C-alpha cells in the first residue's frame, strides 16, 4: 500500500495531495470535517507582514467550470499566524507549506525569515503571482530578473526550502521558471490563477468589487497541464502542480505532465471532502492503470512520448 509516499525538498509526504493556499484557510474549518492527518501537506493562506483586510466584496464570481476570486490576500499577518495558527496546526502530523506574500522585497524577506522558523513549517511557497493586490504580488512573478533577485533573497532569509509559485499570466513560463531556478528555488508550484472577469448582465458592472480576479477550477486545467509539461522538461526542480484538480484521475494527469505532487484548491468548495476522497481513490486507480507507485507517472507524457494515443474499440 506504499504507493503514494514522495520525498521533496523539505517535504516528506505520505501522499502527494495537499490543499492549495487560500482554499483551506489555516485548516480549522476543514478539521471539523475530517482528520487533517491524512493530508500529504497543507498549504496555508498567504501571510503578509501586516494584517490585511483584503478587497471589498463581492470577492467571488462563478464562470463556466471555474470561479473568479479577488480576496486580496486577507490574512492576520505573519505574527498572528506564528502565534496562533501554526501552533494550533502542530496537533496534526502534517507538514505545513507557508505561502508568503508582500508588497516589497523587504516584506517578503521579513515574513520568510520569521515564518520559516516555525517548527511545523517545512517549506515556503513564495507567492509572486497573486493577481488581486495592487502592489507587489503578480508584478514579482512576471519579470524574470525581479523574480530571480527576490527568490535569492527569500532563499537566504529562509530556514526551509523555498518553492516559487508561478503565475500563468505570462508570455513565456519557462523563462520565469528558469529565473526562479537561477535564484535558488528548491521547487516550483504552479499555477496560480489566470486573470479574468465577469460582468453582471442587469447592472452592466463587474461582478467582483475588484473588477478583475483570478480564474481557478477545472476551466484552467488544460493551461496548468501545458505549463507544467513545458517547465518540467526544462528545469530540474520538482513541481507541485495545481489548477482544476478534482479527482484522482486529474492527479495522475498532472503527474504525467511532470508534477511531483499536487494541490487542490477550488474543488474544496465544491466538495469539502475532496482531498480525503482523492487520497483514498488514488491507490486503486494506480493499480488499475498498472503502476506500483505514483512516481512512475511523473513526466510520463514526455518521458516516453512516442505517438499519441488513439484507437477505436
Amino acid at each position, binding site marked *: 500500500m506504499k504507493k503514494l509516499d514522495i520525498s521533496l525538498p523539505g517535504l516528506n509526504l505520505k501522499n502527494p495531495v495537499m490543499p492549495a493556499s487560500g482554499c483551506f484557510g489555516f485548516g480549522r474549518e476543514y478539521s471539523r470535517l475530517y482528520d487533517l492527518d491524512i493530508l500529504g501537506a497543507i498549504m496555508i493562506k498567504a501571510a503578509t507582514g501586516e494584517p490585511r483586510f483584503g478587497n471589498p466584496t463581492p*470577492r467571488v464570481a462563478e464562470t463556466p467550470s471555474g470561479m473568479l476570486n479577488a480576496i486580496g490576500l486577507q490574512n492576520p499577518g505573519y505574527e498572528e499566524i506564528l502565534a496562533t495558527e501554526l501552533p494550533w496546526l502542530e496537533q496534526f502530523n502534517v507538514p505545513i507549506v507557508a505561502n508568503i506574500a508582500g508588497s516589497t522585497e523587504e516584506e517578503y524577506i521579513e515574513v520568510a525569515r520569521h515564518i520559516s522558523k516555525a517548527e511545523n513549517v517545512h517549506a515556503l511557497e513564495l507567492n509572486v503571482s497573486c493577481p488581486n493586490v495592487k502592489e507587489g504580488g503578480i508584478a514579482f512573478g512576471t519579470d524574470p530578473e525581479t523574480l530571480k533577485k527576490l527568490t535569492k533573497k527569500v532563499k537566504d532569509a529562509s530556514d526551509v526550502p523555498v518553492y516559487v509559485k508561478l503565475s500563468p499570466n505570462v508570455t513565456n513560463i519557462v523563462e520565469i521558471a528558469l529565473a526562479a531556478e537561477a535564484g535558488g528555488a528548491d521547487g516550483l508550484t504552479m499555477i496560480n490563477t489566470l486573470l479574468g472577469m465577469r460582468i453582471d448582465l442587469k447592472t452592466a458592472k463587474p461582478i467582483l468589487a475588484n473588477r478583475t480576479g483570478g480564474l481557478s*477550477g477545472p476551466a484552467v486545467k488544460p493551461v496548468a497541464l501545458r505549463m507544467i509539461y513545458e517547465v518540467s522538461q526544462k528545469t530540474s526542480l520538482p513541481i507541485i502542480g495545481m489548477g482544476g484538480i478534482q479527482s484522482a484521475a486529474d492527479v495522475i494527469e498532472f503527474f504525467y505532465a511532470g508534477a511531483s505532487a499536487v494541490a487542490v484548491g477550488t474543488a474544496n468548495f465544491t466538495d469539502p471532502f475532496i482531498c480525503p476522497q482523492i487520497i483514498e481513490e488514488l491507490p486503486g486507480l494506480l493499480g488499475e492503470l498498472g503502476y506500483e507507485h505514483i512516481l512512475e507517472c511523473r513526466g510520463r507524457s514526455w518521458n516516453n512520448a512516442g505517438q499519441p494515443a488513439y484507437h477505436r474499440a
Partner: protein
Amino acid sequence: MITKEMCKVVSQEQIAHSVFKLTLKGRLSSKAKPGQFVHVKTGGAGGPLLRRPISLASIDRDNGSFTMIFRVSGEGTALLSKCGPGMEVDVLGPLGNGFPVSEAVPGTTAILVGGGIGVPPLYELSRQLVENGVYVVHVLGFQTASAVFYEKEFALLGPTFIATADGSYGRKGFVTDIISGEQLEFDTLFACGPVPMLKALEKGFPDKKAYLSLEERMGCGIGACFACVCRVQDDQNGHSYRKVCSDGPVFRAGEVVI
C-alpha cells in the same frame, strides 16, 4: 456538526412567481436552527462548480426533513427547481449561526421583517418563537402581488402585514412604511432581506435589540476562503472582520457594516 449528505427529495412545489418550495429528507434537520443555511450543489456532477447558499425555511425534526424556499434567479436555482421526488440533492449543512431565538423573552413581542427572498428563514424562526411563548408580528415586503408567498402560514403564527413595492397587493411601499404606518411596537427585531431594507431598519431602530441576516457571495460556505467577509462597525485597527458564512449570516445590528 456540519455534514455533507445526499438528501432525498420529498416534494417540490411552486408557491409564487419563480418561487419554489423544496422539502428534503436529511439528518441535518435534527440539529439545525432557524437562520442557518445549507450549501447546495445544484445540477449534479455536470452542474455549476460552486454550491448555492439557501436558508432553512422550516425544519421538521419528527420527519427528519427540512424545507427551503427559493427564487429562481440564475442557473443554479433553475436547476434546483427541476428536482422532483425520487431524486437526490447534495447538501452541506447546517451552516452558520442562526437567529438567537432565546434573545426574545417569552411574553414580549418580536417583530420579524422580511424582504423578498429574505422571508423564508423567518418562518422557522417565527414557529420557534411562538413555541417559546413570544408574540410575533410579521412584516413582509415583496416586489409585486405574484411574488407573495406564505402569507397564510405566517398569519397562523401572528399578525402579518404585507407590502408590495408596486402596491399590487397589501400596502404599497416598503416594510418600514408599514412599521411606522401601523405604529407597530416590539421588543426584539429579526430581519432578513435586501441591504437597503436592513440599513433602514438599523438606522430606524437604533435602540432596539435587532438581529439582521446578511447575504454575501460565497466560496466555501464554512469559513475557510475569506470570500464573504464584512467589516465590523467598530473597527479599531482597519482589518477587523466577520465572515457571513460562519460568524453570520445573522449579526446583531451594529456589529458589522452592512
